[in-house]
């Protein structure tokens, strides 16, 4: 499974691209696989202030609806209209075209509290049900 080394990860299966101005956020390959076919995405309004760990978006699949949590605190500066129009993009390209929103971090050090690709790999391996 793809877990790009340049990204940081949360326990709730979001990824974030560390950047001072526009840190892009999406869900991991593991998450989209578990969710299966995504049918609806609700994104936060531009300019919204968010705190780390707060629910900010919703991804709904044929299985259930899931909250997406802000990996870091900051302001929502971009949202990806492509995923609201064609939710399947999240399944097809979760690290690329299927990004959800971008945050301008207000506390840049918070990103260091998130998992590296190695740590995240360990997490999902340990979560695999026997």
């Amino acid at each position: 499974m793809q877990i790009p080394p340049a990204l940081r990860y949360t326990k709730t299966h979001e990824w974030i691209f560390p950047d001072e101005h526009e840190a892009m956020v999406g869900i991991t390959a593991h998450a989209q696989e578990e969710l299966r076919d995504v049918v609806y995405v609700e994104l936060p309004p531009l300019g919204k202030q968010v705190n780390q760990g707060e629910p900010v978006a919703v991804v709904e699949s044929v299985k259930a609806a899931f909250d997406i949590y802000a990996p870091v605190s900051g302001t929502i500066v971009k949202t990806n209209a492509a995923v609201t129009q064609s939710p399947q993009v999240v399944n097809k390209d979760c690290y690329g075209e299927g990004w959800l929103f971008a945050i301008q971090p207000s506390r840049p050090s918070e990103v260091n509290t998130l998992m590296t690709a190695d740590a995240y790999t360990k997490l999902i391996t340990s979560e695999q049900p026997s």
Partner: protein
Amino acid sequence: MSELIFEKSVPGRRGYRLPAHDGPQRPLRDLLPAEHLRRQPPRLPEASELDVVRHYTRLSQRNFSVDTHFYPLGSCTMKYNPKLNDRIASWSRFADMHPLHPASCAQGLLRLLYELEQLLCEITGMHAFTLQPAAGAQGELTGLKMVRAYHRAKRQDRSTILIPDSAHGTNPASASLSGFQVMELKSNAHGLIDLAELRGRLSNDVAALMLTNPNTLGLFERDILAITALCHEHGALVYMDGANMNALLGLAKPGDMGVDLLQLNLHKTFSTPHGGGGPGAGPVGVSRSLEPFLPVPRVRKTGKRFVWDERGRRSIGRVHAFYGNVGVLVRAYIYIRTLGREGLERTGRAAILNANYLKARLADVFPVPFAGRCLHEFVVSLTPLKACGVTAWDVAKRLLDYGFYAPTVYFPLVVDEAFMIEPTETESRETLEAFANALRGIAQEARTNPELLRRAPHQLPVNRVDDVKAAREPNVRWTPSQVPVSNTSG
């Protein structure tokens, strides 16, 4: 697929032809403003009474229902609805009663409603009830509005509701709709509320904890007394989602556990019709300190008379026209009076026994994520079938071929490939065994012929539907293409 009633339409065909009107007439345009008048008659299907009866009877026969199939839909308590309840509710003294009848002419019905409240108080250990809410989720909303009113009256501004991660989706939805922030509580390794986690989350911003007991895993919250005490120490209320009350009937009272508010789903626990056959009823019970906030009107007894009491300075107001879905309330009353205290207790025990029996019949095929006895329902994980490329969804579809309605799938979210099974007390041992054998057979099919499952169901009028396309590009409107419409109606 069968034809729609619109497609069966034949121009000019009627069920009834009314005789010509021989009284004085005024043109329609004198009675209604021009902008509200149709220029053309509506495109209604034209059919005889027999066409209509056959069409809808046939459709109903293609459906799954409690009257025709075992319906183990977890958390929905799809128990049998005794016909006696329907029969008595249809007596003209109940069925022909108008909500605007003065109370003096409706003493019998008011007495029934009053006594139903008393019975629900006795069953749950709560102090007072409102019968107004028309569904479980409306009961939750009503309860949360009372939570808000309670804290306001104490001049407290509390904005957070704590909800365990195994909760019904309606709980966070109701909290959010009531203007609260939702904070999730992670379940512990036993699938229960974690006391340390709860302690860490409680603060003077927490308005209430919303829990379900037994929870959606069918497990009793063993620490319930410590949980409610801890919440009360922090000034927070405890709301209990009573959707799973079937497990506690005659055995335990939420009021004794320190619960401050709860809703009951009469269409689950108390055998009134459920789902499309509703309407439902979600009465809310409260402790003494919350009684002033109950919706008005309330039924009161003064001497030997029953009256509507509209007073209530601190009441949150009305939540339903008149006094809820009265026909449903009559059915629940009959059910409770028919069973009596001992009967209700036997109901609770049999629901628990049936669930544990079925769980034991399946435990060697499917892992049960949380060990120990369950109450009225249980959750198994279908994860082992993933290796054959088969999902819980496929198994659910295949069960339909075996003549069983599918259990709840993919809920609660804390279990991978969840299958949530609630047999209820009304099923016989033979039915439970037939169901267990069907599931065991399907598990075998998953290994030998997974493709069969991935394409299931095979025996139904409608086979596998494209639910992804249906969700992404919903098209719920049938467009009349070549339907002949006659101009003779009107």
